[in-house]
């Protein structure tokens, strides 16, 4: 769902997260304005709850919501792991065969323009209302950017480097291990950074369509009762989780591929 290629002058899909004071100040000002504005104009809580009441609901409902959140996180993470593994495997296949690339890459590119999340109801028909359809939807959403990025990383290697290792009589296998694979690591991590929030989206959208557990179910259930405060508490939990997943991939990048540190 995000830009497939991690090269070129194109999009900034990942940004190194530092916290200088300005954005913190901006966020604080916005939140205070929201709190004060909602109080001053007497906006009813069911329309737009104030930040403080969202916070206190997050606290009071933690006992109920955190287990649901953990369930959703389990769906997202197992889908993420499956999608990354499958994506890497398919990318290896695509990188090794020009025939497979010619036949399958257009399909993968096509999938980037397709709202894959729309598969959610179909997965409910096939796999029921439990854990599995959400994990599979997360897997599907994660698979495409990973397959796309890793294939690009394995294939778009500087030809001079390949010529160099060939001049050293490196075998195709050695060229793969020493040149292609390290080159693909950066692409893999960029893909994972795109995919981590997608995994969570897959799990939550799956729960929107049919579930009786998970934070998506909690949000939709609160919406049906017009319990807007609870809803926003749930949404904030999901947001925090998404941010944590994103940051975790960033940390993984620093330990797996420290040479990428100076990337834009």
């Amino acid at each position, binding site marked *: 769902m995000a830009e497939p290629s991690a090269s070129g002058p194109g*999009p900034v899909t990942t940004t190194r997260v530092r916290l200088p004071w300005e954005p913190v100040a*901006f966020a604080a000002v916005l939140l205070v304005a929201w709190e004060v504005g909602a109080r001053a104009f007497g906006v009813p809580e069911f329309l737009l709850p104030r930040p403080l009441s969202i916070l206190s609901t997050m606290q009071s409902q933690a006992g109920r919501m955190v287990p649901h959140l953990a369930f959703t996180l389990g769906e997202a993470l197992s889908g993420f792991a499956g999608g990354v593994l499958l994506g890497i495997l398919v990318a290896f296949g695509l990188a090794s065969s020009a025939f497979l*690339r010619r036949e399958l890459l257009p399909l993968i590119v096509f999938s980037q323009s397709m*709202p894959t999340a*729309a598969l959610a109801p179909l997965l409910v*028909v096939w796999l029921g209302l439990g854990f599995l359809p959400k994990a599979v939807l997360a897997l599907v959403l994660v698979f495409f950017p990973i397959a796309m990025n890793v294939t690009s990383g394995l*294939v*778009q290697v500087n030809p001079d480097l390949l010529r160099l290792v060939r001049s050293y009589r490196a075998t195709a296998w050695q060229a793969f291990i020493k040149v292609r694979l390290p080159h693909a690591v950066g692409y893999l991590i960029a893909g994972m950074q795109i995919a981590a929030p997608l995994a969570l989206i897959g799990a939550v*959208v799956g729960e929107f369509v049919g579930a009786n557990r998970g934070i998506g179910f909690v949000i939709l259930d609160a919406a049906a009762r*017009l319990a807007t405060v609870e809803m926003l508490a749930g949404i904030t939990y999901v947001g925090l989780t998404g941010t944590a997943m994103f940051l975790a991939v960033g940390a993984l990048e620093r330990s797996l591929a420290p040479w990428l540190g100076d990337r834009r």
Partner: protein
Amino acid sequence: MRGAWRVLLRVRGVLPALGIAAWEAAVAVLGIPDYLLPAPSRVAQELFVRFFLLVRHTGVTLQEVILGLGAAVAGGGLLAVSMALVPILHRGLFPLLAFLQAVPKITVAPLFVIWIGYGLGSKVLMVFLISFFPVVVNLASGLLQVEPDVLRLMRSYRASRWQTFRAIRLPNALPYFLSGMRIAAALSLVGAVVGEFVGADRGLGYLILLSNAELRTPLLFACLAWLGVMGVLLFGSLQWIERWLLPWARVEAPERRTVAGF
């Protein structure tokens, strides 16, 4: 026999075609019921029979997407330009926006239904919210990531801030903006469909959920096919705009072709 196989493998698109044939055969041989997995021929029939129904709901979704995307471009463009012109806005907001990109905004969909109801508005707002971030972040990056030497050159010509903006920053930002639009276009469809999942009485997302509830899986597949067509048309028109706005970006095109065809 082997020779024939060889020739067949040289035909472009043979693998997807074989896949579809295998799907058709599997459904027929294994006797898979329609509601579990309709055969491709059954889906094609549904596409034909329900043509007008599908077109009507596609029109609704398309309208949501276009209105939402338009609002995202207008709002995002305004914010990105003000960030480019006012440094404090950039320093304060840009990291915040980049940060918010990782937050699954789709979860807000039920809130929008509470705010503005089951109609068009809540989906337009969802599409706007979800496509706003890639537009702003990419456009602002393009406006700001200019060669410092070029800026120094402009300053040595005594160019005003506005002149620098027009002559340097804006052209520099176009390719970034268009990649942002590509991301936004894909996301906008997701926003519209999930918005319709959460509460709607028309649109492809609604029709998907309805056909799902009635176990009319062939219709569900037909909806997915229309969604795919919409996605391809959106991407295609963006590519066309790109070729029209950035004829010089052809330099970049071979590289992209290497991604697709190597």
